[in-house]
């Protein structure tokens, strides 16, 4: 099963490699991982997406909690939450495909950031599934480059995930 975990960790050198190292040392997989400082600059927030059965996820949570750099974490999968991913797409366009790409961009509420005679750079934000649908829908235009931010997650509860 796919699991999304939000992690607050000390914003100090090496903290990220402690998390990444834990996953490689214990042969857990990381589907995506994104990290940046929070309002409190001494804390970074990470959204980590992983896969595993309940037993493995339980171990992952415990092992993460055990890291001295981890301040707090929350598993998002069991609670009401939203998840977003930003994707930048570079598509090759020509007279035959340009309109199609513009139409799809409208339908999927994506936006074109840059235009050259032969290429568009498009930004799309949404659930991972939706961005994949968008990418598929761009055909016959050829997608030549993609970059994904990795998932960002937040619970919908009024109670914030905070370091104190």
């Amino acid at each position, binding site marked *: 099963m796919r699991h999304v975990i939000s992690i607050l*960790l*000390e914003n100090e*050198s*090496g903290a990220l*490699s*402690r998390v990444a*190292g834990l996953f490689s*040392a214990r042969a857990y997989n990381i589907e995506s991982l994104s990290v940046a400082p929070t309002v409190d600059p001494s804390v970074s927030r990470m959204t980590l997406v992983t896969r595993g059965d309940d*037993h493995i996820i*339980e*171990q992952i949570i*415990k*092992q993460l*909690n*055990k890291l*001295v*750099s*981890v*301040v707090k974490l929350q598993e998002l999968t069991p609670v009401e939450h939203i998840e977003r991913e930003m994707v930048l797409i570079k598509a090759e366009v020509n007279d035959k495909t340009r309109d199609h790409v513009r139409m799809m961009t409208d339908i999927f509420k994506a936006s074109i950031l840059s235009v050259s005679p032969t290429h568009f750079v498009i930004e799309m934000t949404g659930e991972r599934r939706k961005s994949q649908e968008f990418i598929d829908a761009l055909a016959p235009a050829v997608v030549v480059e993609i970059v994904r931010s990795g998932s960002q997650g937040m619970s919908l509860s009024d109670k914030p995930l905070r*370091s*104190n």
Partner: protein
Amino acid sequence: MELTGAQIFIESLKKEGVTHLFGYPGGAVLYIYDAIYQQDAIQHILARHEQGAVHAAEGYAKANNKPGVAIVTSGPGATNAVTGIADAYMDSVPLVVFTGQVPRELIGNDAFQEVDTVGITRPCTKHNFLVENIEDLASTIKKAFYIATTGRPGPVVIDIPKDVSNEKTEFVYPETVKMRSYKPSIKGNPRQIKSAVDAMLAARKPIFYTGGGVILSQAADELTELVRRTGFPITQTLMGLGGFPMSDPQSLAMLGMHGTYEANMAMHKSDLVIAIGSRFDDRVTGNVEKFCPDAKIIHVDIDPSSISKNVKVDVPIVGQVKPVLAAILAELDQRDAIFPAGNIENWWKQINEWRKTDCLNFDNPGDVIKPQYVLQKLHEITAGDAYVTSDVGQHQMWAAQYYNFDKPNRWINSGGLGTMGFGLPAAMGVQLAYPESTVACVTGEASIQMCIQELATCKQYKLPIKVVLLNNGYMGMVRQWQEFFYEGRYSMSYFDSLPDFVMLAESFGHVGMMIDQHTDVESALKEAFDRKDDLVFMDFRTDPEENVYPMIPAGGGQSEMILV
């Protein structure tokens, strides 16, 4: 007052009550060694290899329940220390290890003797630090001792760049530490403690299965009280031996791969396993699919990640062993609980049947020296009261099986990592912690050669360790596996050349003895242990092809033991 980093190092260790520092100098730590030279509150023990320094710190910590402290230089000093650090990590030994680092402006430049110590030690430390500013040094040391000694103990590395050790700042040692990201739980959840007591009162085939956590938490008294009060049988792991007296009739001795028949059978057939400070290691469980099929499991452990890691647990209790056991005893008092002997009468009958196999019995015709016999005699002659360290191999298992530890902290070995070379330096640490006590190092001729250089350290600090070498000419444990599982192809497990250990010991300034007659074993041991001030190196020529029994082959179930 302004102090240099090196002076802050010394003053901080004093604040932590450190009296012994195990180490080896080098370029990156020369300012620190200069400060060591100019004080005498802390004794520096100069090992002969950084691995030896760290194992000595481990031996000191394991015997003493105090953190061990070591210091090594950058680069090769740090990499040599890694084996000891990893060993401490696996056995949850509280250590603070200082490593020198190249000056800050050279970090990342592939400078002379630079390695990424924090990177290398990250997976084998509880936590580690690179001190980037002199202002952080004192508080980092405070945190390191706090992390190493609380919760599930473990090694913490502090990497200090050379220039930091020479910079100056105001010295203030923090009185307390608070870390928002590190708050180990101590007390168990009261509801779970009640459930545990309910389960214990209902059990008909209960067994205690206790481990190193009992020793680390200094909970032998509470454990002994609880075991006696319940009347239940108890088996202990390799790391837990002595937490409950092994000579007590309720003790079924060690369990696991080379545990006793009765311990493994009782675990297998039990209806309630009370695991305390033990972690269901694969050498204990064998095939987890076949592990304790009918048992409800209570698990007391300080580390939540140990619970339900290998085996599903019914009553998890996260907390330090000592307060949790105290809470269980208090709960029993409060309920006026009694454990009627009748409840477990049949269970003891069954256990006593298993005991009749007398699985530790061995043929001792007297034509060769049996290693088991040496250990039985060692027990007799030291009145079971010695601190015994060991290396790794058959001799380690025999020591665990035949020395019969009755007290905690007396059995000091490398269980988790299984590090050959541990025994002799660990014995140095123990002897320094307890100068008046008897310390024996049980070893094999392969293991002892891995840290043999420490004989020189023993000479320098006059450590009267008794080395009990069970010399079978083979890497015995390797040979045994090759005999059982590789059709006797003894690939590389035999040394075609061995040193003359008597001459070797003498060349280091010690007393050497070679014993090759069964009838000389007892007198040799007596003579050696009578020499209170000397390190005596006893080279016992033992039966070359003796095997460790019983044995559960790797991956086998608990009830699938090879008895002889």
